[in-house]
């Protein structure tokens, strides 16, 4: 008989546990729900390590959302630029075929990586998706029409912007890591993996930049206005994709 109150308390608690997400889902619809599904894959305090896991604040999660959104849009644009450039560049300079294919394949790989990340974390893709598709195809096509040097200058400008953009993201995640260390906590496995992915992709983008410069990007005429306009366009596109 004396176990009855205990039983009742257990039942009460288990019912509370079962229903509490429903209450809070209403009261904090966006943050809580996202928090739950974001970390569904890795449970708090993985058994291997004794350190507590570093919990991201709302602002940090928003940063990560917009970073992944921008990266996906950027890789979409990059694949389309190379795809539009390849036929014209290869036609006049057949020896560039392997290089163009190599760069395109790498960009397609990056695009796939970010598509998976976006789908996994249920992040909204940018609303400007169709606009970027058209703009990137036009950019690739028009610079290739200006010749090999202009096409390479376009690559140089785009990869410079993208490389520094990835660098900013890596720096931000590293600052979280430092913060976590000061608190005696540990970054989520997934974040660590993301950090190494970002680093790898940044290095590959900068490798494209080197290829472009090696293939007379600096000979493009008119070099300065062309590169400046493309870089400005990239920065604007990044700013827009962060928001919408």
């Amino acid at each position, binding site marked *: 008989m004396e176990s009855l109150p205990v039983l009742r308390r257990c039942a009460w608690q288990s019912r509370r546990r079962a229903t509490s997400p*429903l209450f809070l889902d209403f009261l904090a619809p966006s943050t809580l729900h996202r928090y739950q599904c974001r970390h569904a894959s890795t449970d708090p305090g993985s058994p291997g390590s004794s350190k507590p896991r570093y919990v991201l604040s709302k602002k940090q999660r928003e940063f990560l959302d917009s970073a992944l959104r921008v990266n996906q849009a950027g890789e979409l644009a990059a694949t389309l630029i190379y795809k539009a450039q390849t036929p014209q560049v290869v036609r006049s300079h057949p020896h560039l075929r392997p290089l163009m294919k190599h760069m395109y394949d790498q960009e397609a790989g990056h695009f796939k990586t970010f598509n998976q990340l976006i789908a996994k974390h249920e992040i909204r893709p940018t609303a400007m998706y169709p606009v970027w598709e058209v703009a990137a195809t036009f950019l690739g096509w028009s610079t290739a029409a200006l010749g090999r040097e202009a096409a390479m200058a376009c690559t140089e400008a785009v990869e410079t912007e993208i490389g520094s953009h990835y660098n900013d993201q890596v720096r931000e995640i590293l600052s979280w890591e430092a913060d976590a260390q000061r608190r005696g906590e540990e970054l989520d496995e997934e974040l660590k993996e993301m950090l190494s992915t970002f680093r790898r992709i940044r290095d590959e983008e900068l490798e494209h930049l080197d290829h472009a410069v090696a293939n007379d990007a600096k000979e493009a005429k008119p070099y300065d206005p062309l590169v400046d306009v493309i870089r400005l366009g990239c920065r604007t596109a990044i700013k827009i994709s962060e928001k919408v």
Partner: protein
Amino acid sequence: MAVFIPDKPPLTEPPTNYLNHVLLSEFRFLHREIQSTILTASLPHIPSHGFTLKSLTLGARDAGFLDVSVQLLPRAEFDLILFWLASRRGLLRANVEEGALFQRIAAETGVSDLGVEERVKALVLERLRMNSDVRGVWQDALAQMSLLSHIPLALNELHALSSDILSLAGDTSVDSAWYTRRLAVAAVYASADVVMTRDPTPDLTETTAFVQRRFEDRDALAAKMQGVGECVGLLGSTAVGVGRSWGLKI
């Protein structure tokens, strides 16, 4: 009890601020707990009293609060409606994640595994069935939601529902389809919601048929759009190909 984690204060802040911060979070948490207790207790009164202050007052009494505590809910009836919507959405998620909804439906229809489209349809119907108890009072709720000041929150909830339905169904579109698919599901659900308030059949046969027709319409429209897109793309690439074969540098 849900895990309660106060927002992390920066390390540099003095301890008094941290105490304030924790107290404030505690207070907010308590406030939310009372709100949700009253709202939860009001749910059983909805079929008989509708989405009204009466239901809220009865719920507050059931939960052991004074009648006046209804004032903790600044939007009154609309809070009850939002709570209804959000809690049904949570229930839908729980049905799928714990109740094995898809396996049940697959067993009923005799297919081994449901595709994304069938899952979306099943989820929409399942969600509509959750509203069948409040069918009689649902028009009032729809009227409340269509008030100008309530539209943003109502639309927000509709978006959350369609987003949940698609992610539970395993949709992984990461381009503009992300937007169009959510729009389509939201449109089908919202129109079926209105149709259901006038559906006299006890097991929602008319509504089910309506949803079926809307999904067929959507498929037809999607096929047309895809056809037009492919045609334009083909024409474009043909034009460029012809130009290149003439030796144009394009």
